[in-house]
């Protein structure tokens, strides 16, 4: 993972309603020295953020090339080499400005547009992050408290990263990762700037990838045995069903919290990076069946079991459910509960 090019432009206003101030650099920022800390931060940015995943397209049509994609096409060759990184990013920064100005978005503050091209897992990526400064405090030599400003690299509010390799291959519909914030207005203008849209058939992919992500993580990262791995899948299934019942959006970080409460962040990160999962998961009912679980909760009862146990160790008869085998821990708990009676009656 290495940053090959990085450049900072700025398009921002300090207060609502003021004019936009624009300042474009004419040469790339160095990736040496102080900037090394920036590049570390930049690489982390997308790993820790809640992202959506999609492709270029306009109004749901991925055959149409949005402006952003056309610029990329202009500067990137088939080997993902950029003919002129500075010129490309300048054109994109101007495009950014024109989106804000054209749509008369007087409350959009803009910020530092950091463009960077990096390589990860042999794939070339181009990312743009819109960053702002944050105010901190420092302690002066006399131990008095003084103000201090830094670029907020902890949180990505707006940004997009394009997997150029996949994009060029034309085999993928999931090569843009983007974060657009929650406010509809911000979301809209930024998606318009990038020209990206969510993958329409995401549900199948994501439901499936979530399962493999859980299995993969439970098995390889946590070293759990098959029974526990299967329980993790069951918990995810249970949680997703529950959220669907409530009509809630299923979120990756929530699934992580529920399934791997003690390693939630690590799992979320892996699911994002390795399994290309976005924060807002689209769930496909058919693929969810491939979790091979049956589960339900209510009336003081929560039950989940493997689908293929039905008719073998689990029997259903007219509303009555019988388990001929139960987990040892449960059996122990029940027998403990009944012990004075079991001892007496039998």
């Amino acid at each position, binding site marked *: 993972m290495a940053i090959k090019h990085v450049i900072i432009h700025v398009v921002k206003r300090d207060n609502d309603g003021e004019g936009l101030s624009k300042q474009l650099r004419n040469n790339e920022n160095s990736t040496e020295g102080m900037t090394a800390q920036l590049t570390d931060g930049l690489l982390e940015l997308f790993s820790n953020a809640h992202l959506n995943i999609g492709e270029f397209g306009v109004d749901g049509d991925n055959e149409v090339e949005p402006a952003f994609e056309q610029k990329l096409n202009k500067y990137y060759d088939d080997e993902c080499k950029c003919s002129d990184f500075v010129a490309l990013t300048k054109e994109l920064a101007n495009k950014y400005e024109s989106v804000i100005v054209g749509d008369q978005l007087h409350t959009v503050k803009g910020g530092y547009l950091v463009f960077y091209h990096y390589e990860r*897992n*042999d794939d070339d990526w181009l990312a743009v992050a819109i960053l702002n400064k944050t105010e901190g405090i420092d302690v002066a030599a006399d131990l008095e408290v003084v103000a201090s400003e830094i670029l907020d690299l902890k949180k990505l509010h707006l940004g997009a990263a394009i*997997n150029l*390799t*996949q994009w060029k*291959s*034309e*085999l*993928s*519909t*999931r*090569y843009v990762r983007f974060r657009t914030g929650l406010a509809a207005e911000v979301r809209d203008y930024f998606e318009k700037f990038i020209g990206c849209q969510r993958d329409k*058939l995401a549900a*199948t*992919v994501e*439901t*499936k*990838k979530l399962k493999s992500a859980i*299995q993969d993580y439970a098995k390889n990262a946590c070293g759990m045995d*098959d029974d526990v*791995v*299967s329980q993790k899948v069951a918990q995810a299934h249970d949680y997703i069903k529950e959220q669907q019942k409530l009509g809630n959006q299923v979120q990756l970080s929530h699934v992580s919290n529920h399934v791997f409460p003690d390693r939630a962040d690590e799992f979320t990160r892996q699911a994002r990076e390795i399994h*290309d999962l976005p924060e807002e998961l689209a769930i*496909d009912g*058919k*693929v969810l*069946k*491939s979790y*091979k679980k049956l589960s339900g909760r209510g009336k003081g009862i929560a039950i989940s079991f493997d689908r*293929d146990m039905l*008719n*073998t160790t689990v*029997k259903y008869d007219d509303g009555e459910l019988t388990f001929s085998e139960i987990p040892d821990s449960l059996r122990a708990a029940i027998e403990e509960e009944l012990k004075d009676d079991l001892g007496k009656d039998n």
Partner: protein
Amino acid sequence: MSTEILDAYALVLAALEKKELQDGEFKGWLRLTPQLKDKLELLAGEELTTGSYDLIRDGKPLSSANLSQLKQAHFQNNIRFHVELTAQKIKSDYAICSEWNELLANELRVKSPVKYIFFTNTMTLLTPDCKDEKYVNYLNVHKAYEFVKELAESTEGGDSTIFYERPLRFEFILNESDLDCSIDLDALQKLLSKDLHKEAITCLMCRELVSFLKDNASKQRFSYLIQHMDSLVSNVLLSYQSYVENYTFDKVRKEYLEKRTEYVSKIHGVFDNIATKLLSLPAGIWFATTQIKEVEIGGLETMAFVKNVSVVSTVVVLAVLLIVNLIGQFSTISIMSKEYRGVFDSLAKTYEDEASEIGKAEDDIKSAQAKVEFKLYVAIGATLFLVGLTIWMFCEAYNW
């Protein structure tokens, strides 16, 4: 339809490269062709595969794709899709599973067999036009279930518990080896469908099943039943036969005792019948006694002589008639004897355990027969003696 699905499954499974079984799914790399894509779409419709796959180009991971989004580029030679196939799916119209044992562990599919089967271990496809012995036997296994169910229902034990002195619960699961046995329940079904003794037949089948299977664990019972069906069938048949025999047993006992009394009194009746007739002989003698007159010597042409001759002749005729009659009784008795011997012999043969009792009853009849025959000889003797007496009287009348 089921055949198409299973064909598609077999085709895709065979085409998977570096295939491995993981978490209930076959996973492997597939070089996609338009034909395989159609098959996959069919399978995705059946939820046998997700329809969305990771793909690699020249061994390098490269995104993922949905079947419905494929472009021409996806069919390139250097691209492989990471396809997963559900390894087990047992539905009512088709089943995909590793082998017989997996299918036979599913009660529902034992109770109600599935016709289209694909075994992934052996890549075998079984369809109704298939002659595989195990398959044919499998399709018949449900008859054994229905047989048990019929009995269970008749004892109010739902579809899986036969109550006969104890509850005998079945779990309808089998092993592959059980399918080596062919299921032939025709004899039992025929028996069960009889109108006669219906309840008794059900009852004795339950009894046989219980005593046959009570020592097996409920999980093994059905399997044991299938394996030893022949011996169960013969047990039931034997049991039925002995039931039918026992059923008449009491009647038989009563019957031969009655027969004994009947024959004994019949035989005695033989003499009783003749006895009255015998009483006519003394009357004849008495008549002769009064009628025979002394006749002088040479008076052979006298009336008295004629009368005497006729008296004697009458007595003789009477005696002859009686004797003929008495002798006739012998043949009556011998006919009867033939009859009762026949009856008792067949009884003794049918009910061997009762043979000695039957023999005794027969002996009773035989002794009655002997007595009656003795009496008949006595009667014949007495008749001859009286005739002799009359002739003696006749001779005396001439003072010879």
